[in-house]
Each structure stands twice: as structure tokens, then as C-alpha cells.
């Protein structure tokens, strides 16, 4: 809502206040003022001039040389290129030295050899936004009304000293969609007087036209009022009215349209004028639902298909408008119009909302109807418009105000307990203070036994229950006047759950290990990454009904695709090392069409690509590989107290068949680790790329971060190295498992320190070397004891792994 300060002043006493004062007070009490701006955006030295004569320019066909009287001794010689300039017009003239919006200054200059002592301005050059200008005004110079005086500053003529407050209204405050509504609010907030227009009910003086209204459904249209005015002369509306409409962001059209718009902004009641001569049955109006397939051509020239949800205004023979949304082209006011039937009504807000959405037609009128207009102001608004038509369009009243009122307007009384008010606000107000707030709001009130019985005016449909009144009192008392305290009452410990703590541990561990956390979108494309296996693959992706693009049309079932895209994005930006992870939900269902919420699973996914360590002078450059990623996971598992992790070679789709493992703990698969298949990597412009995916729920189940302390042994350890030759395809994991099996409780640790193949080892063989540390808790082991165990290990490995000691 754009509020002209000059216009507002007509309805509420603003004496001694500035627009800034009013804006601040409104904002602090709940009607936020976004900005205040002045209509004048930098005009100096532009005055009203009269075009005395126009001559063709001797050198240029499209230019005219005009003699313009600007109220000085001598008329000015001005060259003008506008097609519409004509003798006798009053026009805005930028004098020598004038400034125009955008920092333009006007100088005396020669145009094609003819001197020009100023410039005749268009509305655009004076800073008018296109929105408020007609096509005609956008193309030519501005022509001012006849009554203005030559030599006057145009800013005065065009109302440009006015300031406009732009309100950012919350949806509950539709009462402030009118100047009168804003006036009530300002009056309440700043304790000022309101001054409302009081139009008279004008009666026909001569012949009378009968208006006959029929409303089919009282729910759709509980109130419909109309009055007929004839003898109209269509022309421009007075300049002051145009100025105010422009301040409100509305384009002036002609006096009839302007008056209906003016009253809408003033009263919040949209009005519509039908050309009576275009109606088939005189003053007959029938309000009814459309029949399926019925069509109507609206004012904008578009033929609209209606259905049974559309409410139509008809003349008893044909539709003449879509109620509350847009009038019909067949009954439109034109320059030839002399008689109009003026409509003011209350239409059902849900119907208007649905219709305007469905047709994609949202207007100042529909915006007000869909939030419910004030039923008490419908008739006064109609009377006000009729009054203005008689004053500014030559109108003569030829019918009474005819009303079809179906159902009564309920008077609403809401009670507020003083005790409850104190309780909710946490501050003790005096009864006098509360009564004073209701006085400022102009809410009639009676107090009885600590209860305020408040009669809520119809202009405030947002107030229906006790807590609504508490808010009214609080906002006028001032939120800043309520003292802050900390909650008392029963204390609760607060904190994170075990799972929430584990997620923090995982994030912090991974970041310490050099991984960057990323957050990507949950919505993705059904194709992206569909060639890559995922740990939660069952079911099908869930599609949103109205995606904004195919790229964001389904919920992700895996975190990997966006992680891969992120890697690609960064490598394309010359990042040499990509080490990223994401913790987020994936979404799964088995249903074709959802009837219940899908399963949301917490997953962790990681990716390594590019170099494994940043380029440096000490270490040779090496690419991220499977073992670099596995090292990160092993550190993470250690931090989470997850031991006995097995890696089993698997060959899922999209992964390198020889470099992928599923991760198994206690017989349960908790994730996958592997290199992306080179073909898949290539599709995303990636080199060797390691990814992993873990099921967080499974991690929660096996994580064990409690510590059971064991004192370290005080006895010395014995270290024995073991160099073995085994078949090349024997998995090293098996060797280690068998060592542990055979070595018994004295084995403190086993570390693989060398793996190699080569001629000296033999075809199809590899050498693996371990360092075994033996130690007993209670005594020093003798050489013989260690030898015995170590030999047992060697024998066991020979039997189970075909391992030979390397010579």
C-alpha cells in the first residue's frame, strides 16, 4: 500500500508531525513502513508554459520550433521533437539551468541551427514511472490541464511535494488497504483525531431508472448495492485527483474510472462502473455462478473460460463481469459513455481468491475482495463515488441506492480478562491504561469485574478472540515497554541426544582430517547419478507435483550425485585437491503415489579427488586413491570406537569393479567405499575419484565412544618381523586375520609394513612383511616362549594361506 502523506492528512490530523515521525510510529506498532519517498526526484526550474505557436524547423522534418510563454517578458524559442505538441497547450517547460531527475541539466543550445532556450518535458522526463502513464503519455510531451497558471512551478501543479509511505502490510491488516484505514491506525498510534468524508445519499430529482438486483447465493455475495448516474461527460479527472492516484501508484484514465479508483483507495471498497447503455435489461443485475464452459471477454480483451467456481455479474441475459476480479469488455465505460450503473458489493473472499489465482488476474480490486471488505463501508463508498461523479463528471443521479442484502452483518463483541492480559504480557497494566488504548483504537468497550467487553468494528476483521485484543493492547502499549525477563518455572537440563552428539563428532573428525563439509540441494533430476549404485536403493524417487525445473524435480535417494557435481565444479575452478563430505537426508518410498510420509534416512557421503595432499616441497605429488580414502574412514571409525570393520570387495554399478568394497561391521553392511567407474568419472569431467557412503543410523548402532581403561603392561615387548610370500591374489586382510587367530593373547599388535611384487619373488606371488609385537600383561616373555608362538603363527599361515617364509 502506497500512502500519500498529503492525502492522508485529509483524514487524520498530522499537525506538527513529519512523514518520518508517522513512519516510525506505524512501524513500531506493527504496520511496517518500508520506505518514504518524495515524488519530486530532482526537478528544479521547470514551470508551466503556454505554446503560443509552432513552426516547422527549417532543417529537420521531425522538429518543431515553438514560441512558449513562461510568464516572463519575452516568450521563449524552444525546439521540440514531440509529435503531439500543439498551439494553445499548457506544458511543463524546463528553463535554462533547470535540473531534471537523473541529474540532467538544461542549457541554452542550438538544434540544427535554431536556438532553443529550454525544453518542453514529457512525463517520463519529469520522473513519472511508466506504470502510471498511458501509452499516449509515454510517447509525447506532457499536456497540463487548462486551469493552471502560466509560470507556476510544475511541482506544485503535479503534486510533487507530496511524500509517499510504502507500507509492508502483513496479511491480517487488510484494514490498512485504504486511506481511511491507515488514518484510523495513525490516529490510534499517535492519539490523533480522524476526519472522515461524509457523503450524502443523493436521491434522483427527475426521471428514475429502476435498478433490480438478484443474488443467487447469499454466501457468494451477501451484499450488493448499485446506483445509476446519467448525463456523464467523460474527460480527464481533476489534476489533484490524478496526482493522488499517481502517488498511490495508479494510472489515471478518465474521470469515471479515476473516481472509482479514488474511492477504492480512500475507502478500501472496490467499485465497478458498467455502461448502462450496453446492458440488455436496463438496471437489472443478476449475480450467479458461471455454468461450466461459459466464457466472457474481460476488459483486457482476453476471452476467459469459466467454471462453476466462478462468480459472474450478469445483466440477466449475458455475463458483464467476473465478480471482484475484472469487468467484461461488453459493458466497458468508453469515451461515449453517458450513463453508468455503479456497483459496490461484498464478494466471498475464498471465491475471489480462487478465481483470481486460476485466471492469473490479480488486481487492486481482487486483492481487497479476497481479504474481505468492510461491510459497513460499502454503501458510504458508493455514495461517495456518486457524489464525486456529480462533482467532476457532470453526473446526475437517476436511481436510488439499491441494495440486495442477504443476511445481516454480525456485531462482534470480544471479551478480554485483565488477569489474562497480565499473564500473557508479563507486565501489570492499569485498567485506565487499557481503556485508554481502546479509546484510541475507537473500539467501544465496557468493563465489568475485570473483564473488558469490546465491540469490534467491522473494519477490523482480524480481531475475533481474546488473544487478538491482547495483541492490540500490547502493540499500542509498545513492545519495547514490556520488560525482558528470563523464563522461570521448572528447569530442564537441555542438551544433545547421543545421535546428535555423534553427528557433531563425525563432522569435527572429518574436518580435522582435511575434509570440507558441503550442503547441496535435496531436489535433483531423476537422471543425475542414476547410473551410480547407492546404499539405499529400494523404491523409486519421489517427484514433486509442480517442479520449477526438471533439474529440481525429484527428491534425492543418494547424496553422491550432487557431491560428484560439486567436485566437478571445483576441479573446473583449478582446485587441485577436493576433499568433501555431506551429511543429509535421502528420501525413499515403495509407493507409486504417496499416501504416507516417505522414509527419510540420514546418510554421510564423502569424496576425494585430485591430489591427496596439497602441493608442497617436501613430499612428491600423489593422487587421491582408494587407500587415502580408506585411511580417512579408518581414523573416523577409530574416533567412533567402531572396531572389527571388514572391507569386502564388491562390484556395484557405477563403481570400479576392482576397487570397491562394502563396509561390514558385525555382519551388517554399513556403507560402501570405492573408486568411481572411470566411464562415470569421465562423464563428469573427473579423473580418479574416490567416494564413500555410510548409513548413519547403522553407525549410531555400532558406535561406542565410552572408554574402559586398561593399565599398560609394565613388562617389555618382543618384536618379530615376518616376511612372507603368498599368492598375488590372496587378500591381505585374510593374512592379518589368520595371524591374530594363531598368535593368541600375547600378540599386542600386528603392522603391515611392506608389500611388493617382483622378479625375485616369482610369477604370481607377492611379498608381505609384518611386524608383530608380543607382550604379556603379567611377566616378561622368554625368547623360547615367543619363538614357540611365532612358529605357530608361521605354521598356521602356511596351512591357511599357503604362505612361505621369504628367504
Amino acid at each position: 500500500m502506497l500512502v500519500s502523506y498529503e492525502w492522508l492528512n485529509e483524514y487524520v490530523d498530522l499537525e506538527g508531525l513529519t512523514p518520518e515521525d508517522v513512519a516510525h510510529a506505524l512501524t513500531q506498532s506493527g504496520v511496517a513502513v518500508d520506505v518514504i519517498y518524495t515524488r519530486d526526484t530532482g526537478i528544479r526550474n521547470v514551470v508551466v508554459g503556454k505554446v503560443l505557436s509552432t513552426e516547422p524547423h527549417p532543417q529537420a522534418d521531425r522538429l518543431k520550433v515553438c514560441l512558449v510563454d513562461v510568464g516572463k517578458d519575452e516568450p521563449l524559442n524552444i525546439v521540440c521533437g514531440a509529435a503531439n505538441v500543439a498551439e494553445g497547450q499548457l506544458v511543463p517547460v524546463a528553463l535554462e539551468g533547470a535540473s531534471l531527475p537523473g541529474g540532467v541539466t538544461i542549457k541554452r543550445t542550438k538544434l540544427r541551427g535554431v536556438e532553443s532556450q529550454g525544453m518542453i518535458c514529457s512525463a517520463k522526463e519529469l520522473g513519472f514511472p511508466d506504470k502510471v502513464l498511458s501509452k499516449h503519455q509515454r510517447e509525447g510531451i506532457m499536456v497540463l490541464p487548462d486551469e493552471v497558471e502560466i509560470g507556476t512551478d510544475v511541482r506544485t501543479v503535479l503534486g510533487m511535494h507530496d511524500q509517499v509511505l510504502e507500507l509492508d502490510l502483513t496479511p491480517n491488516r487488510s484494514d490498512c488497504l485504504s486511506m481511511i484505514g491507515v488514518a484510523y491506525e495513525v490516529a490510534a498510534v499517535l492519539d490523533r483525531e480522524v476526519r472522515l468524508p461524509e457523503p450524502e445519499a443523493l436521491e434522483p430529482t427527475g426521471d428514475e431508472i429502476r435498478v433490480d438486483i438478484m443474488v443467487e447465493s447469499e454466501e457468494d455475495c451477501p451484499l450488493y448495492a448499485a446506483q445509476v448516474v446519467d448525463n456523464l461527460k467523460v474527460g480527464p479527472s481533476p489534476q489533484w485527483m490524478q496526482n493522488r492516484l499517481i502517488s498511490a501508484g495508479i494510472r489515471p484514465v478518465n474521470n469515471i474510472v479515476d473516481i472509482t479508483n479514488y474511492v477504492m483507495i480512500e475507502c478500501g471498497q472496490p467499485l465497478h462502473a458498467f455502461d448502462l447503455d450496453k446492458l440488455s435489461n436496463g438496471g437489472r443485475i443478476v449475480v450467479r455462478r458461471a455454468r461450466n464452459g461459459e466464457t466472457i471477454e474481460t476488459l483486457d480483451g482476453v476471452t476467459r473460460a469459466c467454471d462453476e467456481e466462478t462468480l459472474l455479474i450478469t445483466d440477466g441475459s449475458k455475463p458483464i463481469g467476473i465478480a471482484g476480479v475484472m469487468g467484461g469488455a461488453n459493458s466497458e465505460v468508453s469515451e461515449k459513455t453517458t450513463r453508468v450503473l455503479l456497483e459496490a458489493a461484498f464478494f466471498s473472499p475464498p471465491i475471489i481468491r480462487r478465481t483470481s489465482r486460476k485466471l492469473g488476474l490479480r488486481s487492486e480490486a481482487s486483492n481487497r475482495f479476497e481479504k474481505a471488505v468492510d461491510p459497513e463501508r460499502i454503501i458510504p463508498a458508493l455514495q461517495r463515488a456518486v457524489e464525486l461523479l456529480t462533482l467532476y463528471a457532470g453526473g446526475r443521479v437517476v436511481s436510488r441506492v439499491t441494495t440486495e442484502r442477504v443476511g445481516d452483518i454480525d456485531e462482534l463483541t470480544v471479551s478480554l480478562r485483565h488477569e489474562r492480559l497480565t499473564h500473557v504480557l508479563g507486565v501489570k497494566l492499569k485498567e485506565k491504561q487499557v481503556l485508554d488504548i481502546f479509546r484510541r483504537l475507537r473500539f467501544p468497550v465496557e468493563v465489568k469485574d475485570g473483564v473488558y467487553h469490546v465491540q469490534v468494528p467491522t473494519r477490523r476483521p482480524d480481531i475475533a478472540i481474546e488473544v487478538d485484543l491482547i495483541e492490540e493492547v500490547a502493540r499500542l502499549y509498545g513492545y519495547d515497554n514490556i520488560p525482558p525477563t528470563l523464563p522461570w518455572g521448572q528447569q530442564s537440563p537441555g542438551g544433545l541426544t547421543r545421535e546428535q552428539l555423534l553427528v557433531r563428532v563425525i563432522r569435527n573428525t572429518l574436518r580435522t582430517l582435511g575434509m570440507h563439509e558441503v550442503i547441496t540441494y535435496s531436489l535433483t533430476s531423476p537422471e543425475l547419478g542414476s547410473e551410480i549404485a547407492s546404499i539405499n536403493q529400494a523404491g523409486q524417487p519421489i517427484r514433486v507435483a509442480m517442479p520449477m525445473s526438471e533439474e529440481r524435480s525429484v527428491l534425492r535417494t543418494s547424496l553422491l550425485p550432487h557431491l560428484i557435481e560439486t567436485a566437478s565444479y571445483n576441479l573446473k575452478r583449478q582446485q587441485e585437491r577436493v576433499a568433501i563430505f555431506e551429511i543429509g537426508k535421502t528420501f525413499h518410498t515403495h509407493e507409486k503415489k504417496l499416501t504416507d510420509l516417505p522414509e527419510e534416512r540420514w546418510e554421510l557421503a564423502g569424496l576425494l579427488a585430485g591430489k591427496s595432499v596439497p602441493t608442497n616441497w617436501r613430499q612428491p605429488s600423489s593422487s587421491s586413491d582408494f587407500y587415502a580414502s580408506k585411511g580417512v574412514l579408518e581414523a573416523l571409525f577409530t574416533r567412533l570406537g567402531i572396531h572389527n570393520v571388514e572391507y569386502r570387495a564388491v562390484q556395484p554399478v557405477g563403481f570400479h569393479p576392482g576397487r570397491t568394497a562394502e563396509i561390514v561391521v558385525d555382519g551388517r553392511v554399513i556403507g560402501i567405499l570405492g573408486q568411481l567407474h572411470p566411464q562415470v568419472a569421465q562423464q563428469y569431467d573427473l579423473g580418479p575419484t574416490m567416494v564413500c557412503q555410510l548409513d548413519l543410523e547403522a553407525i549410531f548402532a555400532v558406535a561406542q565412544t565410552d572408554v574402559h581403561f586398561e593399565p599398560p603392561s609394565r613388562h617389555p615387548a618382543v618384536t618379530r618381523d615376518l616376511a612372507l610370500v603368498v599368492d598375488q591374489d590372496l587378500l591381505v586382510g585374510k593374512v592379518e586375520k589368520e595371524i591374530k587367530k594363531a598368535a593368541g593373547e600375547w600378540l599386542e599388535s600386528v603392522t603391515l609394513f611392506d608389500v611388493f611384487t617382483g622378479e625375485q619373488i616369482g610369477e604370481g606371488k607377492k611379498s608381505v612383511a609384518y611386524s608383530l609385537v608380543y607382550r604379556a600383561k603379567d611377566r616378561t616373555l622368554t625368547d623360547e616362549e615367543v619363538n614357540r608362538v611365532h612358529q605357530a603363527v608361521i605354521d598356521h599361515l602356511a596351512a591357511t594361506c599357503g604362505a612361505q617364509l621369504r628367504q
Partner: protein
Amino acid sequence: MRERLEALKAEAEQAIQGAKDLETLKQLRVKYLGKKGELTAVLRGMGELSAEERPVIGKLANDIRQTLERILDEKESALEAAAMEARLKEETIDVTLPGVPRPLGSLHPLTAVIQQVENIFIGMGFEVAEGPEVEKDWYNFEALNMPKDHPARDMQDSFYITREILLRTQTSPVQVRTLQAKEGKVPVRMICPGKVYRRDDDDATHSHQFTQIEGLVVDRGVSMSELKGTLLAFAKRMFGEDYEFRFRPSYFPFTEPSMEMDMSCMACGGEGCRICKETGWIEILGAGMVHPNVLEKSGYNAERYTGFAFGMGVERIAMLKYGIDDIRYFYTNDLRVLRQFQSV
């Protein structure tokens, strides 16, 4: 004999002083003082001396031995010191060369902000709740006092999957889920961070996916004054004591009275600038007293219990706190951006 001893002493002294390294010195020690050394050799002739001369020469020989041992030790120390000095000199390195990199990762800035907010509220006795991102219309709207025809809900603004299931547009449904789970018990003190979705075109200030943190307190006698106290305590911990805060009435369907909290603009300190639209104030969160309809729908008697709720946009807080001017940075995950949060 005396002459021979004196000569030997002079010769040895000269040789020791001239020694260039520890090895030479070791040989000299053997040569002059060893069992088969020259001093011993001279003393072997003592038998030929008279009884008067023997103690005199013996003492002289002993003095010479002591003198030579002393200068040998001195020379040894000197040579050792020189050797150490040489070694240290040789071992000198360029301390300005960079260390071996141990690359550090980072938390995503949104995670960092969520954790900071969580920590502050945990300190005030709050629990952290979670809720589904795919939500029922009833929880997302109806239970929050937004029936089907409510102006504030628009099919166009939400990602619906079916008529009754959608991607949640706010974290507020978790209020209702939390209350239902508590089954009428008090106190309820929770915050809930989470992803939310709206049908907005992505640009510098809009994102179809973003993050909110919801808060809820329900108990007997909870008042607006406590709401203000809680939010001020939070904001001062989060942003520091240097800022001013104000509260303005606002509107949310699920709270009444409702409010917005503003902070004096970080960029201009309240003077007015482009960022705060010349007002000097920046909106940081929305809040209010839980609407009685929401309490009743969640199984709480609204006469007996009152509550407050608040919600904030995590991206907005992060943008203000770190001076980020485009919301898309949170979702492009450019490592050059993420690395700036290694210290957060």
C-alpha cells in the same frame, strides 16, 4: 735426565697445541703418556739415578705428567667445542621454509551457525528436536492455524507432492510434533534446525531450499516478557553486546501476539545504509506467543499453559555475521568459499 724430561715436556706441549683434531690428540696422549709412551720410557732410566736425585726427578716427572694431562684435557674440550660448532653450523636450516602440510577441512558456514545457536540455547536448558522434511499438510499448515483457505498459504509457493503431502515450508510443524510427543507434559523447551523448501526462483536473496531454526517454550505462566528476555539473551551471545535490539509487532498465523526482532545494522552501526535500506535496523527473527489454537490442536490446554515460539533464517544470520551478499554461495560449495571457514 732432567734435561731429557724438560725437552720431552716442551716437545709434547708443542705437539698438543698443534693438534688439529680429536684423533690426533688421542694419539698424542698415547704417544707421551701411554704405558708404552715416551714419558714412561724416560722414567725407565730412573734406576740409574742416585737415591737423592730419584725423588726429585720422580716429582718432576709427575708434575710433567699432570701438566701434559691438563693441557691434553683442555685441548680436547676446545676441539670438541669446535667440532660441535661446526656440526651445528652444518645442520643449520632455512626456518622460513613451509612446514609439511596437514590440510584442515571446515564446517559448512550454515552448520557452524546452527551449532553456535544450538549451544546458546542448550545453555538455557533447551533440547534439540528434529522433524521430517517431507511433511503432511496438516502439520505444515492446518495445525499451525492456517486452514485450507488461509491467505498466507498458496499452492504456488510450496512444493506439494500430493494434495496432503509437501516439502515443509517452515520448521514450525516441529512445534506441533514436539508437543504431541511430549503428551501434555511441561516444561517444553526445544529448538529445531532444519531444511525447508519454497517455490522461489534462486537468486541473490532467494533460494528454493534454505535453513531455519525454530524455537518453542511451553509451560505454565510463560509470558511475552520472558520471550523478550530469552531472545535478548540469545542475540547478545550470538552477535555481541555492541548491538541494539528492538521488537515490533508483526503477524504469523500460529502466534499471537506476534513480533519481529531487529538488530542495529552491522554494516553502518545504525546510521542507515544500503544493507538496512536506510533504516539502521536489520530484521533477524520472528516470534510470538503460541496461538491458543496451536496449543489446543497439539493437545495442550491453552488456558492452563502458555508458550512462545520463534524462528530465524540461518542463511540470513550467516550472511549478516560473515558479510556474505549472495545466498547462492551456501549451495555452490566453492572450496575457495569453504576454506574461509576453516577457523570457524
